[in-house]
């Protein structure tokens, strides 16, 4: 039971590339823009363009392609099952039937639908992973705080929300360590977590989480007192040690993204969708 070793939240690969040095706000907005465009992408040629563009970004960042895609491995079986489901279950009235068995029919419509869904998941995953690979958690939260700031006007406590996120990120590892300790303590007293059927195993988890929650609340209380003692009174009146600055690189990145977006929209409009 080595929990802390397996937690790679927001895996960040430090580097000095053009992409790494961009303002986090540029990267967050770009990722959001690319994802929105992906949801409208329905043709193979548009996906091909996206693949070339994202591939170019990855190679520009200097992150090994294999590393960027490594996280996909555990998802592959699920993706395969999704693809098979779409292949046999998605139908349109005028679809060509490739293969027929009992009540199952594999059609060209199903094939394309399967492909579409898998491509979308693949691209979504790659874009978000790429964002966290090139941006540290701290600059991500800084960027988020700055982007959400205007929403204060409509009453969203953006700074407090981001502070909550910052604290949550800090405590993930601490709580994982604590969970590990509790599990080990219970194993020492004879609980066999790896024995029994699924239901029996699940049952053994509850006595683990109860002390974890109690511990978490105790920590929260101490943290509140400590923050109080350090004059925290919410986001109002706070200043920041680091402020973000957009530079020429960000301007160039925006231009490139706009060009890509325009081209992609043109292709989306002018080509026949796969389904």
């Amino acid at each position, binding site marked *: 039971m080595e929990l802390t070793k397996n937690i790679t939240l927001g895996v960040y690969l430090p580097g000095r590339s053009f992409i790494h040095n961009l303002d986090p706000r540029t990267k967050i907005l770009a990722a959001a823009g690319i994802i929105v465009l992906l949801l409208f992408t329905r043709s193979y040629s548009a996906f091909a363009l996206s693949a070339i563009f994202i591939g170019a970004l990855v190679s520009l960042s200097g992150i090994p392609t294999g590393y960027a895609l490594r996280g996909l491995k555990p998802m592959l079986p699920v993706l395969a099952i999704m693809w098979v489901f779409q292949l046999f279950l998605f139908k349109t009235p005028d679809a060509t039937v490739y293969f027929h068995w009992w009540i199952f029919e594999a059609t060209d419509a199903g094939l394309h639908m399967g492909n579409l869904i898998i491509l979308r998941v693949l691209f979504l995953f790659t874009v978000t992973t790429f964002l966290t690979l090139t941006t540290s*958690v*701290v600059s991500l939260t800084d960027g988020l705080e700055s982007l959400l700031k205007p929403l204060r006007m409509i009453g969203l406590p953006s700074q407090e929300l981001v*502070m909550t996120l*910052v*604290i949550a*990120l*800090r405590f993930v*590892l*601490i709580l994982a360590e604590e969970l590990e300790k509790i599990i080990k303590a219970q194993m020492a007293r004879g609980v066999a977590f790896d024995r029994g059927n699924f239901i029996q195993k699940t049952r053994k988890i509850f006595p683990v989480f109860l002390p974890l929650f109690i511990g978490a609340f105790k*920590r929260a209380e*101490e*943290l509140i*007192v*400590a*923050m*109080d*003692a*350090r*004059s*925290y*009174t919410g986001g109002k*009146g*706070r*200043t*920041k*040690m*680091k*402020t973000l600055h957009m530079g020429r690189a960000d301007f160039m990145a925006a231009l490139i993204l706009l060009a890509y977006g325009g081209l992609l929209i043109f292709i989306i409009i002018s080509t026949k969708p796969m389904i």
Partner: protein
Amino acid sequence: MEKLIETTNLTYFYRSGTKDQVKALYNVNMNVFQGEILAITGQNGSGKSTLARHFNALLTPGQGEVFVKGLSTVSKENIPEIRKIIGMVFQNPDNQLVSSIVEEDIAFGPENLGLPQPEIIERVNWALHTLGLEELRNEPPHNLSEGQKQQVAIAGVLAMKPECIVLDEPTAHLDPRGRRELLESAIHLNREEGITIVLLTHFMNEVIHCDRMIVMENGSVKMEGPPGSIFCRSKEVKKTGLDFPIAAQIGDGLRREGFDIKPGIIHTEDLIASLCQLKS
């Protein structure tokens, strides 16, 4: 000496599950003087932590009053100013660090004060430098030892430039080396930066480095004075259940054996010196 903190007839009750009002502090009259290192000791539950939390208005008196540089902690308008004067470091470093990067955590306090950016950067650099933490600037706290985390917690308070830092059993989770380094830091801050230190502790070898000590028992101040004179009153100290510093223990034992060792020796070096005198 000028009084930095003054409590007058401070009494504090809290509610617990079974009893309605549990007395945590009763009629406490004590002072913290500007520029001193004050140790507050006592058994668990003697009320030392409760007392310390009154110093920066985390708790407010049930009866009596607490003044920080003449500002009463009872009136709410004084609280921001009081918290600027009195910084506080707690027992568990993990539960008081906010950010996932050391320098950002140290900046947390100054950011809360709404200081301009250049000043925040200057203070963070100063705090890192004063405690010798420059190399850890960009580390995440979970890569640090407990002792280093506690030093970062002190740096976070120091960056707010308080006049007094209250350390609430800061060494309880540390190994002997971490304890020694933390005590050295506290002494350094007092001697070099002129910061008043209030140290809550169970360890008598920490107490002997303090200018003055207070022994708490059942929510009241039992003894007060310089450590040397407190440990002379060995019967009273024993009654409160406290330990003795190693030099005092040995000195006491030797005196009972009939050796001519003066009472009130608490530093090991002093004991060795007087033992050498016996020989010559």
